[in-house]
């Protein structure tokens, strides 16, 4: 007895040392991953935050019906077709009367965004009474001006290395002095679709596209995946060759590169069934194929973890197998099933490759209205923007990543809330 105590005591120091070492390993692993995560987040948000602001220019426009090329009749059609560009260009000329030469004139026109004319058009069409008056309006500035306002263009560089020349800087300085240049919250980013002009490009199209695609994926993969898992785990004959083959194939499918699912979707849905390409419906179908193995495997694991004594208790009371499964086993496994589903959905939300295959990478400026409208999704939008040369797209790329991360966070939060609900019910 005393001998044993001594033996145990001798070992104890070693055991504690081992424990301490393991703790240190664990903590350093966590520290490293947090450091990576933080550097990623900081990098993305410092690049991305400027995109949530946008530079606007205040210009006094003379909404003259002659300049607009309007007759006296202000029909809707006529108003829609009127020459708003001329009005804006004229106003810019009055603002900077000394401008000469083709190059400078062109540069002057390019102070404001191409979208300014549509902004003016909408304004006039909404209140036709402004025709013939002078209005002071805020227009979207061109991306170069915006980049300068956000500190992206260095004045001290030689003129030839700058996107903005000296005369342009002089205009900006004048506008600044007159308080006619201002950074505001970038509403457009959240309310517009994609555009070739970075200052007009918004993420709404991709956001709605992602939402619709996820909706299709969720509606298909959750019921199919969970039903398959329940059947395989609770009802399928055990030690049956067919069941084994199915199981092996599901596990294999989980390891198939996602682009293959894109090719499959292209061949089967578009090629064979003739579903139009680029639409959320087909994106959802392809992502369903991709997420099904994940959902099935994790749901099966969750069902397997339900203690058999619960099944026995229900069966022993005279519940049928279906009742046992749906009254007791599935609710007990629900938190695990939801976790698996969310992991699958998060994967699908961030997936790009298979969607490229089915044409969701096309440039689409319209916000999709339904699952059959052409659209793109957030990760593809990120891919598209990161590929664009304009400097203003860089910050939009990061901002889009932030929106995507926001989506993921919301999804995970929902999962946590739902898990809590299911766990509380017990």
């Amino acid at each position, binding site marked *: 007895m005393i001998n044993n105590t001594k033996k145990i005591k001798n070992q104890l120091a070693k055991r504690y040392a081992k424990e301490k070492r393991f703790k240190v390993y664990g903590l350093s692993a966590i520290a490293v991953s947090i450091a990576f995560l933080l550097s990623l987040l900081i990098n993305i948000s410092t690049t991305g935050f400027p995109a949530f602001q946008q530079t606007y220019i205040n210009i006094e426009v003379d909404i003259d019906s002659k300049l607009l090329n309007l007759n006296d009749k202000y029909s809707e059609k006529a108003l829609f077709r009127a020459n708003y560009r001329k009005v804006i260009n004229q106003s810019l000329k009055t603002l900077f009367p000394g401008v000469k030469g083709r190059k400078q004139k062109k540069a002057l026109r390019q102070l404001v965004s191409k979208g300014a004319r549509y902004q003016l058009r909408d304004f006039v069409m909404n209140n036709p009474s402004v025709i013939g008056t002078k209005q002071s309006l805020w227009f979207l500035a061109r991306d170069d001006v915006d980049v300068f306002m956000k500190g992206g263009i260095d004045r001290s560089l030689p003129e030839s290395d700058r996107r903005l020349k000296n005369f342009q800087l002089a205009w900006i300085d004048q506008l600044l002095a007159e308080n006619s240049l201002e950074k505001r919250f970038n509403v457009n980013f959240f309310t517009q679709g994609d555009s070739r002009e970075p200052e007009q490009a918004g993420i709404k199209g991709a956001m709605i596209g992602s939402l619709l695609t996820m909706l299709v994926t969720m509606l298909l993969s959750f019921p199919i995946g969970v039903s398959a898992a329940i059947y395989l785990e609770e009802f399928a004959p*055990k*030690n049956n060759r067919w069941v084994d083959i199915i199981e092996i194939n599901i596990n294999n499918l989980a390891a198939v590169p996602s682009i293959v699912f894109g090719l499959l979707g292209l061949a089967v849905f578009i090629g064979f069934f003739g579903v139009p390409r680029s639409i959320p419906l087909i994106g959802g179908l392809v992502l369903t194929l991709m997420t099904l193995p994940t959902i099935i495997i994790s749901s099966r694991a969750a069902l397997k973890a339900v*203690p*058999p*004594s*619960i*099944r*026995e*208790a*229900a*069966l*022993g*009371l*005279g*519940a*049928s197998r279906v*009742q046992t499964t749906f*009254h*007791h086993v599935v609710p*007990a496994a629900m938190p695990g099933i939801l976790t698996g589903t969310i992991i699958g959905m998060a994967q699908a939300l961030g997936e790009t490759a298979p969607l490229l295959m089915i044409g969701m990478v096309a440039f689409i400026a319209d916000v999709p209205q339904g699952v059959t409208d052409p659209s793109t999704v957030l990760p593809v939008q990120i891919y598209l923007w990161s590929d664009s040369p304009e400097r203003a797209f860089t910050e939009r790329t990061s901002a889009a990543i932030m929106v995507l991360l926001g989506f993921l966070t919301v999804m995970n939060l929902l999962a946590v809330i739902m898990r809590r609900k299911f766990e509380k*019910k*017990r």
Partner: protein
Amino acid sequence: MINIKKREELDIKIDKTVGKPFINDAKFSTRNVDVFYGEKQAIFDANIDIGKNQIIAMIGPSGCGKSTFLRCLNRMNDTIQDCHISGDIKLDDEDIYQRQQDPVLLRARVGMVFQKPNPFPKSIYDNVAYGAKLHGLAGSKIELDELVEKSLTRAGLFKEVKDSLHKPGTGLSGGQQQRLCIARTIAIDPEVILMDEPTSALDPIATAVIEELMISLSKKYTIAIVTHSMQQAARVSQRTAYFHLGYLVEVNDTNTVFTNPEHQLTENYITGRFG
């Protein structure tokens, strides 16, 4: 039939069940029942009648197949992957393993309290009400409330849980869970109740409550109980069956088994020389 090496290196033969395994008025009767777990045989040729409105106690050393045998009686072993059963088991003269027999109906008639307490991860109320809801036994919410209260009271649990009926059943102590499982079983009013060590986690007072319950139930119902307490077997049961390494060694009136055992193995066990 087979020689079994005993601790004392004694060779004792188990030919066939001694005593009085068969009676008139049987609720259950089993003939030539063999049970296998995969390759391994757990019950060898069990022949026994279980009397109507009686309590039969099953005793024997750990691992001798008492639970296995009990679980055959409501086809609970069907749920175990590679468990095979051969022989005849009749309930009211009807083979419960025949194809027409619906195991769901059988288990509503033959209730079971398991060896390990297994309350549902739901509220205490729902645990007790579940079976009644399943079989449509209560017409209204009030009836159901009454049934739940009555069942919990009979299992001697109501006083302790009456303020926490909607707390999870899994939050109770081991002994409370066991009584909850008993309440859950008697709530559906089965004809036969199989109890696998129902009082193994209970203190003497709660044990007495359950024993009283069993005795009062046995006026209307048939009860088979597995127990490791020979005093309990003696207190509640009319007949006793002794199992040994998968063999049904001896069945007789409880009095006879404890005062005048026929088989050497039975005697060794009840006198404490084995097991």
